[in-house]
């Protein structure tokens, strides 16, 4: 939920409708435009590798926004996120291989398949909470990967399914610059959809369920239906991310969707900050770029190349440590840090916040 308070001084609302706007002041418009302009020019100054990183971040952001909806807002834990990504990727891959289906068919199909799987694997959430639910979603991962592996083997795609670059009308999406904008658009739409859901009835119901299921029930919120809805929407979004991943990389194979990927997504929402969409995005950026940052840092060590064989181990260890540090010392995640910095500058030279406002 976005802040319901006006941000700038001298700005007053004159209708309730104004309070519902995502962007209220001219300042906010300007900031957004500048940000969009920066995003728009980035591909023209970046190297291809940096563009690839940006694309990876967008893909991760879609997935982590989806997981944030489910876990950070609706309070339903999932450890099967990689399974859903795999489901989306395989939907696209299989439809392409078996029927030569086009982009504009496979993506919605992935969304539908994701929604169905979400519905099925949301069912345990009606009986289970917390840990038990997490475990049942873990099973989802194993089942999807098993089915994917069977398909690959039975059809003889032993090194994975290759997928051609998609085509929208006359435009072949192959160049990384085009991919950048396509993925950016998908990420932006996911973000917008999530923002909209969260500021309306469904979002409030999810937050209520996360806070206290029984109370939510007593307020007339259909808890089972809304839980399932959270699973369906989140899974559908995740599966689309998976299908996009398949197209972007040009291949699908089960090895790409390890359990570790699920852990990475969970780490994104923890490190980013639970219950915040900004957190989901920050977390996606951080977790995606961390290994590259470590690689870069190791590059400075003397005799760097002899450490090459240890990099992934470094990555693992560092990733574990960062997760632990956030869990223990900064449960609010990067968003918490961001807000503190923001507050510091907003209030400067004062140290204390006035009465704690609605800003979250």
């Amino acid at each position: 939920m976005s802040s319901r308070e006006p941000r700038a001084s001298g700005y007053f609302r004159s209708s309730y409708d104004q309070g519902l706007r995502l962007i209220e002041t001219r300042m906010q418009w300007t900031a957004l435009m500048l940000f969009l302009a920066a995003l728009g020019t980035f591909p023209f100054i970046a190297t291809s590798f940096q563009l690839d990183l940006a694309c990876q971040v967008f893909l991760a952001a879609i997935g982590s926004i989806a997981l944030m909806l489910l876990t950070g807002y609706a309070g339903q834990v999932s450890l099967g996120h990689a399974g859903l990504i795999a489901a989306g990727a395989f939907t696209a891959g299989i439809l392409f291989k078996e029927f030569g289906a086009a982009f504009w068919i496979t993506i919605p199909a992935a969304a539908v398949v994701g929604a169905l799987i979400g519905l099925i694997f949301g069912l345990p959430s009606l009986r289970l909470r917390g840990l038990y639910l997490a475990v049942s979603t873990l099973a989802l991962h194993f089942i999807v990967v098993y089915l994917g592996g069977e398909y690959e083997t039975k059809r003889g795609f032993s090194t994975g399914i290759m997928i051609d670059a998609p085509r929208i009308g006359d435009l072949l999406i192959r160049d990384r610059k085009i991919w950048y904008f396509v993925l950016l658009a998908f990420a932006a739409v996911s973000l917008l959809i999530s923002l909209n859901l969260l500021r309306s009835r469904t979002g409030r119901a999810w937050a209520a369920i996360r806070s206290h299921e029984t109370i939510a029930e007593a307020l007339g919120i259909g808890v089972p239906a809304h839980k399932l809805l959270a699973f369906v929407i989140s899974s559908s979004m995740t599966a689309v991310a998976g299908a996009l991943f398949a197209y972007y990389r040009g291949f699908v194979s089960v090895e790409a969707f390890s359990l570790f990927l699920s852990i990475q997504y969970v780490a994104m929402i923890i490190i980013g900050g639970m219950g915040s969409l900004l957190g989901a995005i920050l977390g996606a950026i951080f977790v995606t770029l961390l290994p590259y940052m470590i690689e870069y840092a190791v590059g400075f060590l003397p005799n760097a190349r002899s450490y090459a064989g240890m990099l992934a181990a470094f990555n693992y260890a560092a990733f574990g440590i960062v997760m632990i540090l956030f869990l223990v010392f900064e449960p609010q995640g990067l968003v918490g840090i961001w807000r503190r910095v923001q507050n510091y500058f907003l209030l400067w030279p004062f140290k204390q916040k006035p009465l704690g406002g609605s800003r979250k």
Partner: protein
Amino acid sequence: MAELEIEKLTLRFGGLTVLSGVSFAVDKAELFALIGPNGAGKTSVLNCISGLYPGEGAIRFRGQNISGLSAHHIARLGIARTFQHGELFPHMTVAENLLTGRHARIRTNPLKEMFFSRSVRREEVTHREAVEKIIDFIELERYRNVQVANLPFGIQKIVGFARALAMEPAILLLDEPSAGLNRDEREDLARFILRIKHELGIAMIWIEHDMQMVADLSDRLHVLEYGRSVAEGSPDTVLKDPRVISAYLGRATI
């Protein structure tokens, strides 16, 4: 016809009988107090009415048997409640908490919400206005945009009260609304309760420990002890009943 009718309500947890054969009926615009010592089963009665606990026996709302319905279904029929500890959604603002209370009345679907269509926007504005009326009614204007976690407990209880009211209920179940409030706040609360009764004509089942408030405000009393009905009637007669005094007042006033 009574607004709410409870007949031979019995509740068991394992071997433990929490309620046995509790019966009473509440009329329209009636302020019906439920009293009894700690552990008498007062909250359990409310929990059974709102469908959180599976009780045996009949619970009829305007003649319709509602026992066995799911909690959210019962809430949608117009039975709202407050909770002993407020139990608000701490991350939301007061206005958002109240909007959540209006959940069942908002008519939008998730697909439209995703794109925040015109109709969703219209609904949101309409219900925001409705919430504002309640904020006015309960005098929470100062706090409407404050996150609930930052409010003092007394105000939180009042917000809980407002949230239940936001559901536009036919019956309000109040679980110790005055507990934890200071004197001023209790007076406000008493005022709100009376206004709800007179202006909105809502029936209320009211669990209360403050006997003075009960004696002053309630229309009728029902006394529970160890899950059984002990007495029922107007405050004047019931509070003088020796059984009630020995069962309840004798101990509770220590």
